[in-house]
């Protein structure tokens, strides 16, 4: 197939081929050769709108180079911060009178196995009571070196949240006062919320038919 007449798009990794998971000759739909590529990583350009520009200005003045990209999506702003600068940025977000994000809503982990080199993400939601604003800080680490500096000294509330993220994703928060499992038993193997960890479950017989386990059912995604 010639590609001369196609717009020059960056070659993103392939997300999916074909439709409905059919790979053999059973495909009669004609969609078997469909190639769906992952969308490129989102990144917003200025002006961000709302109060986001103010925050970005203040952050860039103090932490030039620490912020990898800014994403404004659905009325929310996300600052992607390199992990080595995370603690400084968080302290700035808390202490700078123009920012003053006093309240942290904790840490949430997300596992993107396809995001090579940055598979594990830690997402922090911050809220400023002084200015009545919200911001999201996101940082990432590779699966091979799952380490992110701990932010407990800045926000003591992250104590349990980081333990939970460690428990579920295996992200090691360097400098945490006592990084142990919190939800799973201490001797549990694996980190359940990772995408390579199976859900498990057993098929159930119902009136002669077998209902497969939830992770074995057909997925339309």
């Amino acid at each position: 197939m010639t590609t001369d007449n196609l717009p020059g798009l960056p070659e993103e990794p392939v997300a999916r081929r074909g439709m409905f998971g059919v790979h053999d000759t059973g495909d009669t739909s004609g969609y078997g050769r469909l190639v769906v590529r992952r969308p490129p990583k989102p990144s917003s350009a200025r002006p961000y709108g709302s109060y986001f520009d103010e925050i970005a200005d203040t952050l860039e003045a103090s932490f030039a180079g620490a912020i990898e990209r800014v994403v404004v999506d659905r009325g929310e702003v996300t600052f992607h911060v390199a992990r080595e600068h995370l603690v400084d940025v968080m302290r700035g977000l808390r202490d700078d009178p123009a920012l003053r994000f006093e309240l942290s809503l904790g840490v949430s982990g997300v596992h993107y196995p396809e995001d090579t080199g940055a598979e594990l993400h830690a997402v922090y939601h911050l809220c400023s009571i002084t200015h009545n604003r919200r911001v999201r800080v996101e940082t990432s680490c590779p699966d091979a070196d799952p380490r992110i500096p701990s932010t407990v000294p800045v926000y003591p509330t992250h104590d349990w949240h980081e333990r939970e993220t460690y428990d579920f994703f295996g992200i090691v928060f360097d400098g945490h006062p006592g990084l142990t499992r919190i939800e799973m038993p201490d001797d549990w193997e694996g980190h359940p919320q990772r995408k390579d960890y199976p859900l498990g479950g057993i098929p159930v017989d119902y009136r002669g038919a077998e209902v497969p386990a939830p992770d074995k059912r057909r997925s339309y995604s």
Partner: protein
Amino acid sequence: MTSTTETEGRIYDVAGQDWDELVQEVTDSAEERLVINMGPQHPSTHGVLRLVLTLDGETVTEARTVIGYLHTGIEKNMEFRTWTQGVTFVTRMDYLAPIFNETAYCMAVEKLLGITDRIPERAQAIRVMMMELNRISSHLVAIATFGLELGATTPMLFGFREREMVLDLFEYITGLRMNMAYVRPGGVSVDLPAGAVDKIGEFLKVMPGRIKEMRKLLDANPVYTRRTKDVAYLDLTGCMALGITGPMLRAAGLPWDLRKSQPYLGYETYEFDVPTENSCDVYGRYLVRVAEMEESLKIIEQALDRLSGPLKGGPVMIEDKKIGWPSQLALGPDGLGNSPDHIAHIMGSSMEALIHHFKLVTEGFRVPAGQAYASVESPRGELGAHVVSDGGTRPYRVHFRDPSFTNLQALPATCEGGMIADVISAVASIDPVMGGVDR
């Protein structure tokens, strides 16, 4: 092992060697350290919370909290279900405040879909009314169990009797007393049944008197105030550092309530106050909760006026046929199900309606890739839902920021240095729901 010869003959005991010295050293030390486990099966720990308490006499010198006994993997399970099925899971997290879980989740999904502005006003008003009813039932449990744990049976009986009225309303409206999965992405599952407005109206007439009764019983009760005043003190600095929200924060004097500061679902159009106290103690948290119930009644009244007035007969689910669940439910002889009209419509007259119904029920709707965070003011504080989509028909990741989880971290700060009996008060004033803590 040594032996001594006595009149009865040889007696064997375990003394001797260097154990005598060791025993002597332990007896000499002034500290009488005792480590006890409170829970995980303890009636005053609100479920399965385990506290490891180090005691010196009756003083708690160290309190450690162990959680995870009720972890059910709800967040993981949701990644294998459709977006709509997720509601059935989140409602079981904080089981005393199911409507709040559902609303936070649905608001996040609606944000991802970009349909926040298109949710019908009637659905929003129903959500507000149900949430405030739920706030009352949740606070009633908090106060009721609190009374029981301090040894008073009457507040418990009163609280559960009043809560039953709210649960009856829930059953009448949704079909279930708890875990109703009533709020759905796009609106609510079913409109208020006939007679619901009258029933809620009756409830509004009875409830103020019942709250007054509760106040008479507890507000100035010397036994109660001695167990609650100046107990489990946590000031504003402590609250802020530990990320505490909800009645605990408002009892420390900060009027931070998302319904006022960052309104959602039209809360800015309702008249109500945010009660605060400055005592930072258990008694203050009790007062805040009772006052919040009174404020909730005001909101319910306003919502009810709208539902029976200007919003009467409006839709309760988004008009978008590609998102709105096509169930026009009706009560048949075999229970609640699709209405005969709807069945006739999809089976007899509209092919498109049948396709939409089939596609929505089997594979669900697709949500554009991205992440969103939506939060509501639950009875225990800020309940946030961080929802990530990869563009598919299932959530990629759902994380709940449950206020019980965060607030429970304050336990050592409120208990250490106090008496062991006050640990009970402290736990009760935090009002943790372990279903929400462990998820």
